[in-house]
């Protein structure tokens, strides 16, 4: 599997990009121990002028390079946490709905419909504005709009799995329905959801960026979205300040997509050979 994985150029590119990002995120507190929101030099220092501030400073004199590194931490942490939350909630809801059937299924699916009817970003906006911006709230806000897709996919998968012989066998030997649902059915319903996980992570990273671009991120953290919004005020004189964090964002999302495509391709090849 791993060798197949590395044969696809997409997967290799995605792995390299993400490895660099993870390294940036991990090294941030060690390379830039100072608060990235602290003022460290003259305002709007152009890049490549001062070797201690290689990418210069922003409108308030904060280190851009340090912001990029610390921003990688926030982006990856929020993106992964929000994606994990939505996948876990979605898989649980989907498994219960698909396995229980009847009115439980009906109620859960109508709730899923309702969440899909409301634009996820508006829901996130409303939730953050009511609960106040902090890292945990942002994670939940993003997950509110993202759990429905894994829920639907899991339910569809569970509906087909629960008719299989081994599930009937588990019933015959007297296993508790909850045990069948979570130990026998759920693990087998996971692959299609996991194939989609890269799209969910990418969407979560983009939503976090959009929220912090609108000033709804945790005010005590550096975020790429926040840096882009900051740079907007001086877009004419220093477009660089908005463009650079955006490139970091695009590379992150692209890395996640490429990795996902590579993984899906590799597993397809593996199944084809088997």
């Amino acid at each position, binding site marked *: 599997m791993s060798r197949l994985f590395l044969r696809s150029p997409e997967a290799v590119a995605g792995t390299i990009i993400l490895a660099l990002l993870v390294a940036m995120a991990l090294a941030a507190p060690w390379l830039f121990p100072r608060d990235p929101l602290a003022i460290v030099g003259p305002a709007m220092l152009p890049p490549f002028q001062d070797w201690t501030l290689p990418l210069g400073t922003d409108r308030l004199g904060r280190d851009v390079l340090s912001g990029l590194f610390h921003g990688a931490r926030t982006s990856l942490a929020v993106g992964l946490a929000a994606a994990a939350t939505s996948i876990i909630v979605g898989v649980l809801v989907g498994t219960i709905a698909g396995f229980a059937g009847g009115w439980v299924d009906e109620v859960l699916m109508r709730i899923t419909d309702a969440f899909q009817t409301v634009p996820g970003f508006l*829901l996130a906006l409303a939730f953050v504005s009511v609960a106040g911006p902090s890292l945990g709230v942002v994670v939940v806000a993003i997950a509110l709009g993202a759990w429905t897709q894994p829920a639907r996919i899991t339910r569809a998968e569970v509906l087909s799995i629960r008719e299989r012989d081994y599930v009937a066998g588990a019933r015959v030997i007297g296993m508790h329905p909850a045990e069948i649902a979570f130990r026998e059915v759920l693990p087998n319903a996971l692959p299609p959801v996991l194939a989609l996980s890269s799209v969910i992570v990418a969407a979560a990273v983009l939503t976090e960026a959009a929220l912090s671009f609108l000033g709804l991120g945790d005010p005590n953290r550096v975020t790429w979205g926040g840096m882009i919004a900051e740079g907007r005020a001086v*877009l004419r004189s220093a477009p660089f300040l908005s463009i650079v964090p955006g490139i970091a964002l695009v590379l992150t999302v692209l890395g996640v997509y490429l990795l996902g495509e590579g993984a899906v391709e590799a597993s397809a090849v593996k199944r084809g050979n088997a």
Partner: protein
Amino acid sequence: MNRALRLIRRRLLGAVPVLLIVVVGSFLLLEAAPGDAVDAYAVSFGGDAGMIAALREAWGLDGTPFARLTAYLWSLLHLDLGQSVAFSRPVLDVVLERLPNTLLLMGAATALSFALGSALGIVAGSRPGSFRDRFLSIGSLALYAVPGFWLGLVLVVIFTVQLRWLPLSGMETIASGKSGFGRALDIARHLVLPVASLGFLYLALYLRMMRAGMAEVWRMDFVLAGRARGLSRRRIVLRHVARNALLPLVTMLGLQSAGMLGGSVVIESLFAIPGLGRLAQEAVGARDTPLLIGIILVSAVLVIAVNLLVDIAYAALDPRVGAGEAQA
């Protein structure tokens, strides 16, 4: 036609419980926010403690949470979405005033992304594995990774700051005195960058869907039959392969409407377009929860309406849909 009517009736009935859940969810958010509708009213129009208490009783806000929910449902049934704190006006009035701008922006972005995305998808999918296909596939993947608001800023730097071709923000030139065609042209110039920023993501999505759909259809027997009959490649691509691959994209038009409405919040804020999305951002800034919830409710209705329209269009395009429903 009977088939379409049945479809509409079934969809409308299905929308009732969904809307009810959205309303209950909105109510919970309103309850969680500090202050209630009377506070919102008092902020706008003033009033002493006695009057506030009387209003609270009259609006049914002094009872149990359940009584408050019933009062809320009752006022929604009368199309009363409450009072906006920031605008000192009924929420519905403010929202309906902004809605046309958002519909124009979304309509234009949808048209651009659907037309260009499916056309480029046909180009990529007509010869799978060719250079054009590789180029468009990788390009669309890269485009798919670009956040709309950042793309908007980059376009502003290029077309407004450097080239000075297009206006920076707003919906039209203020007090330009233009009317008719001149005004339409002015609005169109203002909308070029917002529409591009909002639509490019979906362009990439439609391109990828069209290409993937065509790759599936190429393998089917009727394509082989078409070749055997000696049809030209062009005719096979357009009339047989592309036509069949287009149907899933129509479904996507409805599914992406919620996402695009969410995306318009950031794009409208960036380009200062007075639409629903910018209104949502303003509501957050002013801590105007009734207005924000009103926008969510109107958006939900809008998404349901768009999906209904798409379903009707789909039924018209594909005679198989709903044909067997008379028996079911």
